């Protein structure tokens, strides 16, 4: 199948033929890549569409089910054309989702802001005006991402208990900040490393302060990198379950925690669960769709641009 992805030609038998100076055009079919070969191209296009639809199908199914009544949602075989209903959403919003949604928003937005605030100067000190052994520092940051959260969660819990910040959104904000900071440092560093030297030299001649250099000269140039870092930090914070589950309760519980408690053992709940899952995922879906390219940069920690 992997060969099929490159539709063109069966080509010549051996690798040595490549160097033997075949006359261009003498081969059987020498299409140019991206040109449209008649039949295999159609097949590949169809295959791509099928794969895309298959992957999106569970989500489309979730959205459709969320707009059905509980009775229709539980039908087997499924009733795709059942009348649409807002019951699922009504049930979800009656369950009091606003505090958790708001908690998630607070935790994600504030921790993302803190991450950028800390990561930006750090990235500067690892690229434009680097400290000694800056590669070691950079790899230290990466290594903290390999430390599973679960390995430190008990002390974090005990500390919060002792100090009295269990079920406090600020504790979660601090932890999300440390969780995402290494990613942001990596990303921003790779963007800062590309800032033209001349700009910085001009700034240093002008005697601009560090804050001014960062804010007025570097930041505008690396805005795409900042946006990508912000996007990925926001998504990871919004998605996080383990820390929120252990460290929060009724007051500071986030949307994922709320979701886990949303399945009841009695009665039908499929439409409700689908509605809840869709609403909770909506911010991530919107942000991700709006900035697909930033998503790639963010996911690869700036290694892929």
């Amino acid at each position, binding site marked *: 199948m992997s060969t099929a*992805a*490159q539709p063109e030609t*069966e080509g*010549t038998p051996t*690798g040595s033929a*490549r*160097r033997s100076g*075949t006359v*261009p055009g003498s081969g059987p079919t*020498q299409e140019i*890549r991206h040109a449209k070969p008649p039949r295999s*191209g159609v097949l*590949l296009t169809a295959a*791509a569409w099928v794969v895309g639809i298959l*992957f*999106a199908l*569970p989500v489309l*199914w979730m959205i459709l089910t969320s707009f059905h009544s509980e009775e229709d949602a*539980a039908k087997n*075989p499924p009733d795709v054309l059942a009348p649409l209903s807002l019951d699922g959403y009504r049930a979800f919003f009656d369950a009091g989702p606003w505090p958790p949604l708001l908690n998630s928003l607070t935790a994600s937005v504030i921790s993302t802001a803190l991450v950028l605030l*800390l990561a930006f100067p*750090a990235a500067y*000190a690892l690229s*434009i*005006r*680097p*400290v000694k052994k800056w590669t070691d*520092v950079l790899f230290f940051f990466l290594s903290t991402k*390999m*430390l599973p959260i*679960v*390995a*430190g*969660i008990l*002390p974090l819990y005990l500390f919060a208990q002792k100090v009295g910040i269990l079920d406090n959104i600020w504790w979660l904000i601090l932890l999300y*900040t*440390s969780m995402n900071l290494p990613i942001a440092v*990596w990303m921003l560093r*790779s963007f800062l490393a590309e800032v033209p030297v001349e700009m910085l030299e001009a700034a240093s001649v002008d005697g601009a302060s560090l804050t001014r250099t*960062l804010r007025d000269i570097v930041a505008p140039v690396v805005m795409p990198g900042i946006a990508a870092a912000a996007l990925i930090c926001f*998504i990871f914070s919004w998605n996080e379950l*383990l820390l929120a589950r*252990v460290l929060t309760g009724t007051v500071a519980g986030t949307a*994922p925690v709320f979701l*886990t408690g949303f*399945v009841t053992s009695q009665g039908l709940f499929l439409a409700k*669960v*689908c509605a*809840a*899952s*869709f609403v*909770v*995922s909506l911010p991530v*879906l919107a942000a991700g769709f709006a900035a697909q390219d930033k*998503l*790639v940069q963010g996911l*690869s920690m700036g*290694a*892929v*641009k």
Partner: protein
Amino acid sequence: MAADTSVSPEPAAAREPATRHTPSPALRKAGDWSRRAPLLPALIFVILMTQLPFLATLVISFMNWNAYYPDERGFAGFDNFVRVFTDTNTRNAVWVTILLTVSVVFVSLVLGLLIALLLDRKFRGQGIVRTLMITPFLIVPVAAALLWKHALYNPEYGLFNGLLRAVFGENAPQPDWITNNPLIAIIAALVWQWTPFMMLILLAGLQSRPLDVVEAARIDGASSWQIFTNMTLPHLRQYIELSALLGAIYVVQNFDAVFTITSGGLGTANLPYFIYQTFYTAQDYGRASAAGVVVVIGTIIIATLALRSAFSLFKEEGR
């Protein structure tokens, strides 16, 4: 365009006109500190929040500490570790973690590569298909797990059995997907979420491939397969390693899917879930910490041995 970034930024230190005149030691020291200053807040914060808790975990792992029996708190030596390694539940959790991580990363990597190849050509609706493809990754993990558990796997009204009945009629088999194959059920849900991740990185890698060289090879008569194995794959290598490394980092830690789909039952408890349960439900702090230490050591071994080469992309860039 991506990998080439390693070429463009010359070692940042070279930009500094530092060697023009040698400053006095005091001045240089001040200079060093002015370099370090912007770094310190982030560095100190990360050390405080990630290294300190782990040190505490290390200490607790040598203690006999169960919150249900607060009077018996004391030094335990290696007891917790012995229990971790002799207990069948823990060993099972280690095994599940390895199986889960390896299979999810491997399968989604292969699928991601195939789909990336499929999307790396111009066709009508390319953008739409790409958008469809990344949708699974943009569903909150807990929501995705709920979706698979209830809307897809449920034996009575899940989509899978619904489709079976719609196609094969009343007597269609109606398997209980999760009970029959609990681990595979979790793996499938995770593969669905992680394939788009792999695909995105690999697609970016494919699109950074120098096309003129490929063109030249083709004109020289190289077959598609030759181009794929001799040019595309070597070029993609660092992207494959990168996505495998990042995927492994996240999947090793997976908690959401195990917690939601099986609640760790049916032999699917991985280490994160096992540790969560040991300290949250059983309140056995000492043993949970010992298991945590084991996870970290395991992760370090995997990271340094199996995936060391994966740093090539980063290293190259961070030269």
